[in-house]
């Protein structure tokens, strides 16, 4: 690793996009205000972008690659997302940005009925090298229409892969892997993690899609978590360690297809499973994991499978309610009490 200091999640995404574009001419970005300021004279004269996306993630890429490869679109989600599908099926490698995953209701068709199904409907003749960058997550006081976590909804669609990176290191390698992939990959960034720093090599590298990561080894209990919930899982594990319980913490990393082997192996070892997913409680990745485990690792289970998720409500605005809405170390400990309490006497 040639870089001295840590860089932020946000800078890492920028770096990965930069390297992907440098490596392959067919890679281009499109979305709303990815550059900003199109046709504004003073910016054009200075070859400057105005925004670099609403979060500043793509700042600097337009000046470097030009407006033809960093395409600002009108506010027309259905058509620019669908255009990305059309460009991908004809051989380019588009990386559209859906500013908030909550906007999926404007353009789901492009993924659900078109992009994800073309290869199958066309008898295997199409490939779909399309990476949809989007953001999810509560915790930014962005209220009900800008705080959802819909990676599970998208991951339910056959043909779609969904990645939810937790660390800057993974974010870079996974984004580059996604752009190399010949399928739709939804790359879902937690907007509240953009400021998180971590060590990231400057070089181009990929992290394989579909592999979960064991963040902490343990023998008593498996905690599978997604995105920023991994930090919650780690806090829970720290807390439990003080009480002599050794939790294994797995960062799922890829939500579709998720890494059944790693999860099943861990549960076969520990016999206990907690899943933390900030999506709303029904029909999500957490239920999928619980269902697979209750089927394929049933004989190894020593207790109920616990899912800690958001409640079955929209995301509230008020700061105190939003904090309550999100799973926390405390809520995990409380809601999974049953299987944890069981463990303590065993370990004591």
């Amino acid at each position: 690793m040639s870089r001295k200091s840590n860089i932020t999640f946000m800078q890492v995404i920028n770096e990965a996009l930069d390297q992907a574009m440098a490596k392959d001419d067919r890679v281009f970005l499109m979305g709303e205000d990815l550059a900003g300021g199109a046709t504004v004279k003073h910016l054009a004269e200075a070859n400057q972008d105005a925004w670099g996306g609403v979060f500043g993630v793509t700042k600097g890429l337009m000046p470097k690659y030009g407006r033809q490869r960093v395409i600002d679109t009108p506010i027309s989600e259905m058509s620019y997302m669908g255009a990305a599908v059309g460009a991908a099926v004809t051989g380019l490698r588009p990386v559209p940005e859906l500013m908030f995953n909550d906007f999926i209701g404007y353009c789901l068709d492009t993924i659900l009925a078109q992009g994800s199904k073309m290869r199958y409907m066309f008898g295997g003749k199409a490939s779909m090298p399309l990476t949809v960058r989007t953001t999810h997550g509560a915790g930014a006081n962005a209220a009900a229409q800008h705080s959802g976590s819909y990676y599970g909804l998208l991951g339910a669609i056959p043909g779609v892969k969904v990645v939810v990176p937790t660390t800057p290191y993974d974010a870079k390698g996974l984004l580059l892997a996604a752009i190399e992939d010949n399928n739709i990959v939804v790359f879902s960034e937690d907007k509240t993690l953009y400021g998180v720093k971590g060590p990231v090599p400057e070089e181009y590298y990929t992290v394989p899609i579909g592999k979960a990561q064991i963040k902490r080894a343990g023998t008593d209990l498996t905690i599978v978590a997604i995105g920023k919930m991994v930090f919650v899982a780690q806090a829970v594990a720290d807390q439990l360690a003080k009480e002599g319980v050794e939790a294994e913490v797995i960062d799922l990393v890829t939500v579709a297809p998720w890494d059944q082997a790693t999860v099943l192996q861990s549960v076969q070892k520990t016999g206990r499973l907690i899943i933390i997913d900030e999506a709303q409680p029904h029909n999500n990745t957490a239920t999928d994991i619980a269902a697979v485990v209750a089927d394929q690792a049933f004989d190894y289970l020593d207790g109920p499978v616990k899912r800690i998720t958001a409640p079955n409500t929209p995301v509230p605005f008020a700061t105190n309610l939003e904090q309550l809405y999100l799973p926390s170390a405390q809520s995990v400990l409380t809601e999974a009490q049953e299987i944890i309490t069981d463990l303590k006497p065993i370990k004591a």
Partner: protein
Amino acid sequence: MKALTNETAKAAYQKMNTIRDFEEHVRKIFAAGVIPGFVHLYAGEEAIAVAACAHLNQQDYITSTHRGHGHCIAKGCDVNGMMAEIYGKTTGLCKGKGGSMHIADLDQGMLGANGMVGGGFPIAIGAALRQQYLKTDRVVICFFGDGAANEGAFHESLNMAAIWKLPVVFVNENNGFGEATPPKYASASKTFASRAAAYDMPGEKVDGKDFMAVYNAVGQAVDRARAGEGPSLIECQTYRTYGHFEGDEQTYKFDSPEEIAFAKRDDIQEFRAYALKANLFTEAEATAVEDQAMAAVQAAVQFAEDSPLPDAQALYEDVYAD
């Protein structure tokens, strides 16, 4: 359409001032880190919401946008409840659960700010359909931006309004930018008003900094709608005083001398000058109204500050109706 009277001119002037004062306060409080989330200010565009809503009764409806504070105040929402909502307090119009982007007050006919750009189009159609269905003479105003005009729902909804002759007025707030992108880049049509022709509907472009221009154009459109003559599209050219949202550094300012001059105009001062000249109200009345507006906003801030956060239980409530 009624001509302005001393009463209605003062009311309009008060609302414009209330919006401006409200936004200036929100701006300061946001900068101080007191208010959470995204905030989009309406400062500089007051003439549009106030002039348009001057033609509405309480029972008429409006749909709004992410930049909704001005529409709320113009339609008669309580500023205490609004400010408390923006603070996320339990006394807010939505119990603090909606926030700036979702303020709504059905009793005032305010069908919600909307975090989804273009989200108001179909809702306006539904509300207008309701009026027609129940044979009322109520109307609906659908506010939307220059950016929103490029969403597919614009097309679908204007077409539906036209074929069914729905009582809805589409008021386009063309403030020169959708986020950081100007319509001259994002839209192929020379004016948004000209798109009305595609729906065989009257379309008119007016100076959105000029209260009377908006007042007259929307007034005629509302009259047509009430008379069962169908929808209209009014484009109002304007400019927002501040960034897209609070925190936006606005690196994308206007270039041309005309644009810069336009952006400097103050719709409130212009209306004040006009009204004084037209003897709609006196200097003393104007000052009194200004003071009242400021006092109301200051009281609203105090009200919001003093209000409690919602109870934990509120998280789980209001998902399903009985």
